[in-house]
């Protein structure tokens, strides 16, 4: 559950606007952190890994409405700074192809970046703890844990937005008299007889926001967990293959110790 599949105009403006602002801030920080030559050198890799993620996200497992993400793998290959850039690029291209709303690109970038960074941290930590030969199992565990956390973040976002009561509020119309929202559907198109041809003054049924959120969370966790297992299997297989064939892609080189000046270079004179 690497991003929200919620269309434009459903989430409140403060939420998606805030998402955009935070995403831009994260991008500026990532851009600044990537100014070193070695990071710049990896720029084409950002393009290629992002393309890999886009291809994966475009292939849907139809019965469970899930698509592969490969975000943990992407995070492991790119590291945290470039992962943020990749997350944004992926979301912009997906939005340009109609996959996900444009207004929620910011929120989606944050979710995807969180997934990549968390996946990277768990994989790096796990490999250090258990060693490279167990990289596949570590990747599987990291993938399931990461997807669980980001799915919870997603449900938290929907809860925060209040979108489930909402649908009433956000599908309502702005009343210029008191600047509150009211639902045209409570009187609705049916009321004016466009569909039914008659007028009715039936009270709309009470719809609890909690009930909607519970149903949303149930759907997301139930269908998502099947997807997590699939994703974990694929990521584990790829990571264990990479660990055997080219481990340097997975193990981040340790920072070089600062070079001490050779004694001969000290020409300190008295």
């Amino acid at each position, binding site marked *: 559950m690497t991003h929200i*599949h*919620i*269309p*434009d*105009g459903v989430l409140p403006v403060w939420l998606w606007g805030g998402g955009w602002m935070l995403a831009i801030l994260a*991008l*500026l920080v*990532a*851009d600044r952190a990537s100014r070193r030559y070695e990071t*710049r*050198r*990896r*720029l*084409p*890799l*950002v*393009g*290629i890994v*992002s*393309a*890999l993620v*886009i*291809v994966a996200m*475009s292939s849907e497992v139809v019965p469970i*409405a899930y698509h592969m993400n490969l975000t943990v793998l992407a995070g492991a290959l790119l590291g945290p700074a470039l992962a943020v850039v*990749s997350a944004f690029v*992926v979301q*912009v*291209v997906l939005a*340009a*192809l*109609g*996959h*996900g*709303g*444009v*207004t929620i690109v910011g929120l989606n970038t944050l979710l995807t970046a969180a997934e990549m960074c968390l996946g990277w941290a768990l994989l790096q930590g796990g490999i250090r703890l258990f060693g490279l030969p167990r990289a596949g199992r570590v990747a599987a565990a990291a993938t399931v844990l990461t997807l669980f956390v980001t799915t919870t973040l997603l449900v938290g976002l929907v809860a925060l937005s209040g979108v*489930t009561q909402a*649908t*009433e509020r*956000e*599908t309502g*119309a702005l009343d210029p008299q008191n600047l509150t929202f009211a639902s*045209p*559907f409570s009187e*609705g*198109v049916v009321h*004016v007889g466009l569909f039914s041809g008659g007028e009715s003054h039936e009270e*709309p049924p009470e719809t609890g926001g909690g009930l*909607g959120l519970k149903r*949303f969370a*149930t*759907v*997301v966790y139930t269908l998502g967990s099947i997807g997590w297992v699939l994703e974990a299997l*694929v990521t584990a*297989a790829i990571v264990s293959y*990479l660990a055997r*064939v*080219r481990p340097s*892609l997975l193990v981040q080189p340790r920072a070089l110790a600062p070079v001490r000046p050779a004694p001969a270079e000290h020409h300190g004179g008295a």
Partner: protein
Amino acid sequence: MNVRLVDTIAVSGRSPVHAASPRTKLAVAALAIAAAAVTTNVLVCAAVALTAIAAAVAARVPMRPYLALAGYPAIFAALFAWASAPDLLAGALVVAKAVTAALAVVLVLFTTPYPQVFATIQRVLPGLVGDALFMTYRAIFILGDKLDDLVVAARLRSGAGRHPLRSALATVRALGNLVLYAFDLAEREYDVLALRGYSGRLSVPVRRSAAPLADAALVAGGIACLVAAVAWRVAWRELLPYSWLPPAFTLAVLAAAIAWSAAAKEGAS
């Protein structure tokens, strides 16, 4: 998702919409998305969607891939609507919003070559991000071809069909190979860029409009959509009985676009 097909249609199209300025098309797509976001009326949302389809007809965009790609978000939106919408009409609105925004955005991609789309976006993004966008789009084509070849090779070796598990393992191994290939490709690509004088910014000039009338028509359509969406949201009590007007008007526009497109096709042949 056939990105190659989208790109071919965008590059080879010769309609006035293709000739319009990329900036205008992006701005109009933004207006349509704003209209879809603002509206609370399914019929007004349908009208915005019909306007986008009318523009696609005028641009002589092949309808099947266009509608298939724009309809893709409907699957996820329907799931969300089913899980959270209080009634059928509200659910339909959620799905309609998703499809309408997708119709507008996909139309831009079907009528504008991707370097032009990204060149416009690149102006407002940090250098690293703009460059990554270009490289990503290019890589989608390279990786797509390579993945097809690798999967075929892996399946042939594992005897696909008879051994599904072996076939799945072979496919995943092909993905692993793809990652290795991608990494080597990235290294080579940077060297080529550096040799050609890359200094941290890929610069692509934005093309100007070759059909100012098409620009004007697109802008007028976009503004009309937004005005209708805002009007039906703000004054919904008064305008609700007239909700049928926007879709009726856009159906007429769509009919005119179909007739114009057919006439243009006959004239060309």
